[in-house]
């Protein structure tokens, strides 16, 4: 009797422990074994970040895919961008990454590549399981890291200057074209502010725009091997800060107290006719225009005399397959579907960038929405006026960029001078990168 009790206790322990470790492994296989095996159906986990409209579109795309591939079921997990990579980091730590993952170019891709968490898709492209015929090499290159193809771009993207023609015309200001300079930008912004009393520009957010600013001046944010900053003269950053600070001080651009109230594209100043300029990614055109209603938004290259040097094409996002996926073949089938099926783009438009395949673009040309047409034309313009993207982002770059944002805030709040801010950023960045 006592013995049996002891045994059952021991057994309970063992069962419990094995259940714990067992569940770790099972979920490492993408949670597919427990639910997906009935009727030979495979269940894939898939994650992405985005706005509500993207969530709706993506689920529609998934439904289409499941109709054509009845042997595959996709479990979707999605959030906004905030929190997405935190969640993924926790899943990676648990060896529990989804089968299909929306991945971001730059520091994130490099981080995952560094840890060997993403599957090399080269063989699937070579065998034709992912059909990328007619995709330009530079676009494919952006998914590569150290010779491995770690992601298929979902579409092409570029930084763009959105502007509100109505507001500019009302103020009698010059409508910018792709040859405008920083001085033009400042002059136009000031003019709009003086004439209309509204803001003349949105405060530039340093994360992408300082990098562009550097590129336009012929520098990079990081050096070749990502061990230090890519520029030596702190005056560059000080100038960038001064440019913005003066606009803020003169009331032409809003300070962070206003910017911080903006919690989504729908709240942006340009959407409400409160600022004529907004520099951001081109794939946000749809979200921005639909929120702006009948305000007339156009897009052009960012300002700068050498903006051809500064501009670059970027994969809007990448589709990656995790190395721990048990169902890589099936995951690849979805990526192929996403890349090649015209239905995907009829549903999603240019929300994940302009399609990477030429024949898809051609097929779509006839019945594009007005906004999508603008985006397609814009990407065409950038293609002819841009330089290759910098892919030398070190894994620590998200921290470096956070430091840049912090210093930028301090400068805009007037707690640091532009020069002090520039020096402090270098100090922080160096300390992070040499750690």
């Amino acid at each position, binding site marked *: 009797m*006592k013995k049996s*009790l*002891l045994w*059952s*206790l021991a057994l*309970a*322990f063992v069962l*419990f*422990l094995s259940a*714990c470790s067992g569940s770790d492994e099972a979920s490492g296989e993408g949670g597919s074994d427990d639910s997906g095996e009935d009727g030979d159906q495979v269940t894939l986990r898939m994650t992405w970040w985005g706005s509500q409209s993207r969530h709706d579109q993506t689920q529609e795309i998934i439904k289409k895919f499941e109709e054509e591939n009845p042997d595959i079921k996709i479990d979707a997990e999605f959030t906004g961008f905030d929190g997405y*990579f*935190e969640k993924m*980091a*926790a899943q*990676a*730590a648990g060896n529990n990454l989804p089968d299909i993952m929306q991945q971001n170019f730059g520091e994130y891709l490099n*981080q*995952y590549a560094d*840890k060997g*968490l993403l599957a090399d898709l080269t063989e699937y492209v070579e065998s034709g399981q992912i059909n990328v015929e007619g995709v330009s090499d530079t676009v494919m290159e952006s998914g590569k890291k150290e010779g491995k193809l770690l992601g298929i771009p979902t579409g092409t993207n570029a930084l763009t200057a959105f502007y509100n023609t109505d507001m500019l015309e009302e103020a009698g200001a010059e409508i910018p074209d792709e040859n405008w300079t920083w001085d033009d930008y400042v002059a136009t912004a000031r003019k709009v502010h003086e004439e209309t009393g509204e803001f003349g520009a949105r405060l530039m957010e340093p994360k992408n725009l300082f990098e562009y600013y550097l590129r336009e001046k012929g520098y990079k944010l990081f050096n070749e091997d990502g061990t230090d900053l890519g520029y030596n003269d702190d005056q560059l950053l000080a100038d960038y800060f001064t440019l913005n600070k003066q606009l803020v001080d003169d009331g032409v651009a809003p*300070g*962070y*107290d*206003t910017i*911080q*109230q903006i919690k989504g594209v729908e709240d942006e100043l340009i959407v409400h006719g409160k600022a004529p300029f907004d520099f951001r990614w081109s794939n946000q055109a749809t979200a921005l225009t639909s929120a702006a209603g009948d305000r007339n938004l156009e897009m052009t290259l960012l300002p700068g005399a050498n903006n051809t040097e500064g501009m670059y094409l970027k994969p809007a996002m990448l589709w990656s397959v995790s190395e721990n996926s048990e169902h890589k073949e099936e995951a690849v089938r979805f990526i192929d579907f996403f890349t090649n099926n015209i239905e995907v783009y009829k549903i999603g438009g240019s929300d994940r960038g302009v399609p990477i395949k030429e024949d898809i673009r051609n097929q779509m040309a006839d019945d594009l929405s007005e906004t999508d047409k603008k985006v397609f034309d814009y990407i065409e313009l950038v293609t002819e006026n841009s330089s290759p993207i910098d892919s030398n982002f070190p*894994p*620590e770059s*998200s*921290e470096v960029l*956070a430091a840049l944002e*912090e210093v930028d*805030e*301090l400068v805009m*709040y007037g*707690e640091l001078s532009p020069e002090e801010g520039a020096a402090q950023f270098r100090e922080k960045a160096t*300390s992070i990168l040499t*750690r």
Partner: protein
Amino acid sequence: MEPLKPARRKVKKDNRNTTGYLFISPFLLGFFTLTIFPILYSLYLSFTDYDLMGTPSWIGLDNYVRMFTDDPTFWKSMKVTFFYAGIAVPIRLVFALLVAMALNKIVEMVGLYRTLLYLPSVVGGSIAVSIMWRQLFGNDGAVNSILGALGLPTHSWLGDPDTAIWTLIVLYGWQFGSSMLIFLAGLRNIPKTYYEASSVDGAGPVKQFFIITIPLLTPVILFNTIMQVIQGFMAFTPSFVVTNGGPVNSTLLYVLYMYQRAFEYFDMGYASAMAWVMLVIIAIFTALIFKSSPHWVHYESDTK
């Protein structure tokens, strides 16, 4: 002869204890796998460089050294947290006590009032309340609308580094419900006869408060203080949701910075080290409060 004795004892022991252990095994399992193991593992991680995805590599005390010598943000978050806890905790306790005393006087519909006042704490740590707070104190939020309507100057509460932390302090103070209920229970336990006797002797309400209510309530005050100090140091949701640490890190609470290190900068080893530093700080504060308690806490059963 020799082996017989221990064997007998063993059987006897097993007989009683095994059943006991079996009954508490669900707790034990949870305790060891979900509490003890993670605690020890985080202690181990605090001595490693661990980016969540790779394998932890041992770096000894480096994380601690870096924290104290080479991380201004760490000190900033420490400062913010001490300021926050140091002001918000007393505010909440005083508020809770005052409301509890008011409720103690109310005779009719006391249940309704209690529920209404407890509500903010039920939804307390929740995201929803924090989001509401963000709206209330936003530039176009309710607070500014009311100020504007009254002809008072409006203010960018969350955008100004000087006022943002105060909105969080007010939020903390407002969620006084659970302390209030505990105070209320304490107040109910004070025999009415004490007040009656003292009023016969001519003591007014203020005097009664200081010579009867407060002394008899000190055990409850001690309990509430310790619980709230711990909660104050560990606050996360408000700064995460309402301000996300900004502007210029003026609301970067310690735990939020720890979260950022762990999940935004993939610096889990460092974050674990931070967790242990916080553990030590909370332990010190709790110990200090306990140590001081003989001087100001009175138990009725004490024979002096």
